């Protein structure tokens, strides 16, 4: 057990200062403005500046485009980026999932140049999993890929492909054997998004995050872009999915967050800080300083208890807890500050330049993307509590046959 401050060597301390100074330089005001306008979770200037130093995936060895950082150095980098703005770095996290699969399963002759482009910040990858008919039943994907010699022909549509409009590749779940049980008939293909037949349309969400619907019409992709065996997609997918679900995370001697929920909770933490700062200045109806008001003190205390729970609950359970506490407390903090809690960024009197207003909108998406909290409760029921699976008819369907 260890919760102490990480003791840095002189070298690491110097690196930390260097990183801090560099990030302060590249995260210019227009970067934030760009993110606010696009909601893309990506900025080519920032990514390429980081990539040029091997700092986008700094834990990778230098020959793979990284900087060979130790776990401590990687953690320094991670936290310094969060200090700047986690939103802009979304696609860095998204890309890292398919990158791991590409590295593991593809022919190095094809994979290496792709991975280098990613590490250099010139290419990003998105996740083409969910479809218009439903994202929770991920193994039920219907986008069809048919092989003819060295080429695959892909048809269908994917929904919620976040980052498709700025990505070079999508890591696509395709149906390659409609007769097989659903988990056994899917294949992963890394599809270049500039391919002919790909059409991308924006979907706007009320957190400001942009996502996309992507249509595939007779899209031709070479077999060398297949990731893992034909019809073996479920196994290939599991590596990245488990990572997204915080299952089997290498805790690195406590140098990682205990679950993906910590990132969600930082938005709550930022709101709490803003409310606390506000309470030191604002006064109530009887002229009392709100920092002394029992209602404010108790509400901030309650939020803090939930925040601590959100960042302390491990694995898949942490994902559910963090979303739950964020949803609950974002609304509660808005209630606490009153009408000013409704004011967005760049408006007169908004708290923390709109942080409180933003948190309530942002919170709602966390219950859905990356697998809904209901899907996670199903995972917890089976894998943590060992409860028997429900016998649902769709659990056994054969996609095309719908055999009885």
């Amino acid at each position, binding site marked *: 057990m260890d919760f102490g401050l990480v003791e840095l060597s002189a070298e690491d301390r110097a690196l930390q200062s260097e990183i801090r100074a560099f990030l302060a330089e590249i995260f210019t005001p227009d970067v934030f403005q760009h993110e606010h306008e696009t909601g893309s979770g990506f900025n080519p200037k920032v990514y390429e500046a980081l990539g040029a130093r091997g700092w986008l995936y700094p834990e990778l060895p230098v020959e793979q485009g990284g900087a060979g950082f130790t776990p401590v150095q990687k953690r320094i980098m991670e936290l310094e980026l969060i200090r700047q703005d986690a939103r802009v770095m979304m696609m860095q996290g998204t890309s890292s999932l398919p990158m791991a699969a590409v590295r593991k399963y593809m022919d190095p002759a094809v994979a290496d140049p792709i991975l280098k482009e990613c590490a250099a910040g010139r290419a990003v990858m998105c996740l083409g999993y969910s479809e218009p008919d439903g994202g929770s039943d991920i193994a039920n994907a219907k986008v069809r890929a048919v092989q003819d010699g060295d080429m695959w022909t892909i048809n269908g549509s994917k929904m919620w492909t976040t980052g498709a409009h700025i990505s070079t590749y999508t890591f696509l779940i395709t149906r390659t054997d409609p007769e097989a049980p659903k988990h056994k008939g899917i294949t992963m293909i890394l599809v270049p998004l500039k391919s002919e037949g790909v059409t991308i349309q924006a979907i706007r969400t009320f957190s400001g995050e942009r996502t996309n619907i992507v249509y595939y019409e007779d899209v031709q992709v070479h077999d060398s872009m297949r990731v893992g065996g034909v019809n073996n997609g479920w196994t290939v997918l599991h590596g990245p999915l488990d990572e997204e679900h915080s299952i089997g995370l290498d805790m690195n001697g406590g140098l990682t967050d205990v679950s993906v929920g910590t990132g969600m909770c930082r938005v709550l933490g930022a709101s709490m800080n803003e409310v606390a700062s506000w309470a030191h200045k604002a006064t109530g109806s009887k002229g009392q300083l709100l920092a002394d008001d029992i209602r404010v003190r108790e509400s901030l205390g309650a939020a803090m208890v939930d925040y601590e729970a959100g960042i*302390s609950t491990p694995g898949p359970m942490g994902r559910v807890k963090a979303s739950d506490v964020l949803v609950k407390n974002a609304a509660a903090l808005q209630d606490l500050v009153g009408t000013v809690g409704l004011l967005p960024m760049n408006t007169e009197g908004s708290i923390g330049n709109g942080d409180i207003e933003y948190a309530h909108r942002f919170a709602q998406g966390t219950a859905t993307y990356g697998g809904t909290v209901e899907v996670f409760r199903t995972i917890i029921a089976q894998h943590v509590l060992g409860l028997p699976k429900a016998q649902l008819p769709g659990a056994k369907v054969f996609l095309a046959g719908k055999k009885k």
Partner: protein
Amino acid sequence: MDLVELRRNDYTLEEVSQEVLVAFGDFFSDQCPTSLVRASQPLGFDQGLWDRLVEMGTTTMGLPESAGGDGAGMVELALVAEEFGRAIAPAPYIEHIVTSRALAAADNPALVEILAGAADGSRIVALASAPITPGAKQLVPAGAIAKDVLAFVGEDLVLFSVDTPFPHVANQGSTPLAWWDFDSVSQRTVIATGDEALRIYTRAHDERMVLTAAALVGMTEYALGLTVEFTKTRETMGVLIATLQGVAFPLTDIATNIAGARNIARKAAWYLDFSPDERPELPAIALVYASQTATHGTQQAAHLQGGLGFTVENDISMYFLRAKGWGSIAGDPNALLATIGDQVLASVK
């Protein structure tokens, strides 16, 4: 608060801690079946179990070596508390341990005899929850079996001693609670005064909150286990109720809360051991969250056994009643929330 502090977040238990956990887990499951818990009601104390706990070294492990103890830290004591709570053992483990540690910390020659009695378990000691105000009686946890109670009076930390403890008062948690009329107690030993007194008293309260939090975690986990087993055999409309999301999902929420509450309690214990001046709000957070977890968790666990979960005969009833009964003894949740809030407010100043 700093959201990007470069700290470790490592919950892995050391090997010795793991051994403590297993040893006490085995001890309580052998020595403290629920039949013994039931038989000890309503007082909530079993002398035989207490004697065996003393033999296990429970009353000395947390005392400093200078006081004849083994110098165990809060992390290990919290692990014992988790197993103690799992068994809802009728013994004043928490009260006695935190009070003896406070007495040892006072390092006062007048206490040598009492400390020896506390170490060998022959003298049960306890801690008053609030400062003494003349003319008002106070409900003292373990007050019906303790002859020595540590309390804050004005600027002083005072040990009140009696020959016969005050009579037990019935309570929801079946704990040895008693109304102490401190005014009537003439045997008083001032053990510390001023800042020193406040420091020892605050520390004892923090320790009590953390150990109670850990006990509530074990308690809730045992109750959850009872209901998980029930749902795997109980059927409705031809299916096991465990396969229904209306049953399974609330159970996952209990498990989720337990996992977080356990980590917070252990982290709070670690801070008390290794970094006591930082995160002063953690013991309160640990207690508040574990209390919420236990109250909600045991209620849901009882409810998901239907009418059977509402019966006295079902062991889950004992867990449900102690969730509130033990949690409220260690601190007033609303007062604690305000002090936690004060830390958030202070962190941005």
